């Protein structure tokens, strides 16, 4: 602060928490996922993650330098965007395509709209969708960890959901199957989720509602085994790390419930009726766009106030 008396409207709450500390916690929560990715998919996974994080940062830096704005890369939000985007790639993804995704995520989705806090959808998610639409073949060319059991080694578990049995459950949980590098190991993602919840960075409402609604609706839509569906595909990763983004999720608890249930419903519907690839991403993207309206209808009444018409 520059020593001037800054007068702002209430509430005057002081908190030691900064954007930087929150993003640092998210990065720490991502560590188990990153370790699993490197162990399962080799050094190429690490290469993708490092390149993506660095390029995202660089994009933000160059943009802010070019338009003479304050350099904000030290808040780590771009690193988080880059790492999450890389974790959404299959291990064989060409690096230049990933770099294109980073540029789209940081410059088009975030900086063009005014930087962190003004992005209308989650940048990493939008980057993933842009890559998914542009390079569908590369994005769905899922690599399988070399030590996966035969039953799971052909496609992602979602593609063969009908033939999965409970016997495959342990390998699903450990992530011994094909998929993008970050989504395979459910245990690592759950560990990250627990860390984020314990540190108070996210509330478990969105992931819980998301997963619960997906379970319920995929059961209603007649999925063979809804519980296995939760642990295959990008559902958990999306629910924990992408749907909970502060900027693009609702503010109130009831808003978060609507948001989570909406994501779960759309995911289940797309998985049941449209094809499994990218269902989670599109579901979260659509709900991201509805967040302003969810915020409007769940606005809390001020104490003693009249409900706004």
């Amino acid at each position, binding site marked *: 602060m520059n020593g001037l008396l800054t007068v702002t409207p209430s509430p005057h709450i002081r908190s030691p928490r900064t954007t930087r500390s929150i993003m640092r916690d998210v990065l720490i929560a991502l560590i188990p996922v990153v370790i699993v990715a490197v162990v399962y998919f080799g050094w190429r996974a690490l290469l993708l993650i490092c390149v993506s994080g660095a390029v995202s940062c660089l994009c933000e830096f160059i943009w802010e330098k070019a338009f003479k704005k304050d350099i904000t890369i030290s808040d780590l939000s771009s690193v988080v965007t880059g790492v999450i985007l890389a974790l959404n790639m299959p291990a064989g993804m060409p690096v*230049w395509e990933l770099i*294109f995704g980073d540029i789209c995520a940081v410059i*088009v989705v975030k900086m063009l709209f005014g930087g962190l806090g003004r992005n209308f959808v989650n940048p990493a998610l939008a980057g993933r969708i*842009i890559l998914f*639409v*542009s*390079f*569908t073949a590369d994005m769905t060319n899922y690599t399988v960890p070399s030590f996966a059991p035969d039953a799971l080694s052909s496609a992602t578990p979602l593609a063969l959901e009908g033939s999965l049995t409970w016997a495959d459950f342990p390998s699903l949980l450990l992530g011994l199957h094909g998929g993008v590098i970050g989504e395979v190991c459910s245990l690592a993602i759950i560990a990250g989720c627990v860390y984020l919840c314990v540190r108070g960075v996210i509330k478990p409402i969105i992931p819980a509602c998301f997963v619960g609604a997906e379970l319920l609706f995929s059961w209603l839509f007649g999925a063979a085994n809804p519980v296995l569906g939760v642990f295959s595909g990008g559902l958990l990763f999306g629910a924990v790390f992408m749907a909970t983004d502060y900027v693009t999720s609702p503010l109130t608890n009831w808003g978060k419930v609507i948001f989570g249930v909406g994501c779960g419903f759309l995911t289940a519907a797309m998985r049941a009726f449209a094809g499994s690839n990218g269902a989670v991403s599109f579901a979260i993207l659509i709900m991201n766009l509805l967040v302003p309206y969810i915020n409007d209808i769940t606005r809390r009444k001020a104490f003693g106030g009249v409900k706004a018409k």
Partner: protein
Amino acid sequence: MKRKLDILKNGLFKENPVLILVLGCCSVLAVSVTVLGGLGMGIALTFVLVCSNVVISLLRKVIPDKVRIPCYIVIIAAFVTLVEMIVKAFLPALYESLGVFLSLIVVNCIVLGRAEMFASKNTVGDSFFDGLGMGLGYTMVITGISIVRELLGSGTLFGLRIIPEGFQIGIITQPPGGFFTFGCAMAILVAAMAKKGKKFVPPVGCGGDCAGCGAACQEKEAVK
């Protein structure tokens, strides 16, 4: 002659129909996937625009005010039918790639907009140059956008491979890529005009009908 040249240049930059007036975007977004399609569409529209502007300007004292829009549509539709037949006869491939958008020139807002805003109030010569300027402005933009989209999206130019297979960005050929390229083109033109020191006045909410407009406006004097 200076005035004629100004009218021509007006359509190219200052009142570019696509990027500044934001008219006729539908066809720009839809047809700009290949350069050939974009260029063909631009030439077809320019032809229709020039012809309809001239004829409407010729008939401007004859057409009763109350039924002017149907009259314009009939004139425009006649020329569009003409273009459609010519393209279908001599360039069947282009006809296929333009599809419904060729016939939709009838309801293209640039053509009707220039008929209403310019040709119905100005002399034949002025209307000719206005149609030519607006048409060339449209052609310039749609060709530019389609060069970028075909090069990045399909890796080709006029169907010739420039960028090797496997380095294409598929989304550029799809609607989101169209909107994105369009937005970038708009930003570049506005930035270039701002750099030249021209104040950018977004022509929002003004149909250009200064004679029938009661509002005070800085543009008003310039038109008189």
